[in-house]
């Protein structure tokens, strides 16, 4: 109490208006880091994004449940499992996470900060890419330990990376469409159901050519099939990069983004 003016002077200085937005890069970086921490902290999400893909990879590689002829199962499986991992984070995880953020008013609250919608989307994308980098590192590590011998050169690797980025865009826009239109619980159920169906039908583990012929064109048009097939062509078969998967994913991205920006509701 030596200086009676101190408390008021201090508080006035503390709260005296000095508004201003931080630079966009800083807002995006801190939001992305927050999103990443929230993603990695979530047990169910980790089950979906890490445990299930690795279990499938190991399970089907070391057993002979899958009849793939002469090819080593791990060479066939790894591209499909990478595709599954990308879908689990960009689509399933994001649809559920964003659905609940909407329900709990998080999107609304962020809407009142200087972080723009573009900034929020950029941050979410960065967080998804961060988790995917982690997933792909773990999956490739496990696959290499199981004897995986990827068949691609640098062109194939570049193609694979492009495909993963495009698939991330397609899955993210579909995730936001789901999260922004359905109730959180409905988005959760739908995202999990779609995950399981696409895991079964999308060429992740079971080759698409084992399905009835009339069904195959439909399956080929799925984003997960496009990603798995494209990755498998360059990584397992050492083939020239096919164009069809790029095209399929581009169409899904355009359609998903158009619908999401039209129908997404922030509250």
């Amino acid at each position, binding site marked *: 109490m030596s200086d009676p003016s101190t408390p008021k002077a201090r508080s006035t200085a503390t709260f005296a*208006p000095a508004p201003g937005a931080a630079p966009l890069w800083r*807002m995006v970086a801190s939001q992305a880091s927050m999103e990443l921490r*929230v993603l990695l902290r979530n047990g169910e999400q980790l089950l979906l994004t890490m445990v299930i893909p690795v279990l499938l990879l190991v399970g089907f590689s070391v057993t002979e449940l899958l009849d793939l002829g002469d090819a080593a199962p791990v060479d066939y499986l790894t591209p499909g499992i990478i595709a599954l991992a990308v879908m689990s984070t960009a689509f399933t995880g994001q649809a559920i996470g964003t659905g609940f953020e909407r329900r709990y008013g998080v999107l609304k609250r962020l809407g009142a900060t*200087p972080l723009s919608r573009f900034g929020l989307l950029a941050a979410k994308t960065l967080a998804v890419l961060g988790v995917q980098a982690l997933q792909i590192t773990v999956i490739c590590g496990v696959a290499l330990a199981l004897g995986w011998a990827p068949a691609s050169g640098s062109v194939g690797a570049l193609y694979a990376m492009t495909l993963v980025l495009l698939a991330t865009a397609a899955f993210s826009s579909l995730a936001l469409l789901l999260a922004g239109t359905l109730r959180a619980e409905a988005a959760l159920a739908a995202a999990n159901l779609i995950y399981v169906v696409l895991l079964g039908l999308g060429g992740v583990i079971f080759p698409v050519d084992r399905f009835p012929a009339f069904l195959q064109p439909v399956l080929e048009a799925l984003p997960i099939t496009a990603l798995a097939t494209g990755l498998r062509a360059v990584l397992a078969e050492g083939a020239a990069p096919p164009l069809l998967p790029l095209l399929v994913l581009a169409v899904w991205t355009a359609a998903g983004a158009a619908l999401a920006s039209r129908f997404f509701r922030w509250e």
Partner: protein
Amino acid sequence: MDTAAVEVTDLIKRYGDTTAVAGLSFTAPRGAVTALLGPNGAGKTSTIEICEGFRRADSGRVRILGLDPDADSATLKPKVGVMLQAGGVPTSARAGEWLRLMASFHAHPVPAQVLLQRLGLTSVAGTPFRRLSGGQQQRLSLAAAVIGRPELVFLDEPTAGLDPQARMATWDLVTELRDAGVGVVLTTHHMEEAERLADHVVIIDHGRVVANGSAGELTDAQQELRFQAEPELDTESLLAALPPTSHVAAHPSGQRTRYVVVTEAPGGLGPGFVATVTTWCAANGVLPEELRVQRRTLEDVFLELTGRDLRDS
């Protein structure tokens, strides 16, 4: 700096067939606390959310710091702090982490540590939002609203569900904000909060402003004398003993009846007036229990205004 913090003119908002806001107008100055006071469903949250840019008005004019909440939203966002009625934080985000994130969106934020300490949240800085008590969640939302050193903050029921200590801490912070020159617009249905905290009180009911002014103006500095006694006293006889322009109202409550006496006579409700009442009581064998002279409270005004509306509808 010559524009008001908030200027709302003839605001209308409908949800389907329901009219939530029915031609509401008020002005909130800068560097002052304005309370929107009203019962639940009066249209407070709709009004504040239109000001915050979350909802669009069906008609009317809204200016926030002289700007349009819709068209100028990017300019307004750094200048305006927002506290939602509930939620707004990811359930697994930790209190300190969330505040640091909010701080990182602003150019000159208040350090997160300072706010955690001010609002008694230091010990739960590492606790996920879902594990915080309701009161701690409220205080965290309040901290997030002011961390960017805004010119204006909107607080939607900032003390709902708070214990007395937390409410006091919130009131202190709001007062400090005002003293630092921040405009504060808050909604509440606690009369005491509006009376203690607000420079301006806007009483809202059925989507309209029913009264508007400082708490002192609204209560009109009018004194009243209250006492309790047996029902059905001869109030005519009491009135006859009092100076002209006095009024006696009887409010039955259980076994006893509450009598409220007011006067507009010169000298008002002074010692002589009280003596006249008690003399009449003595002469009539009436024991005036809980006799007291007090200023009308905001609650009296509020119930008078909103209660009358209820009877009308």
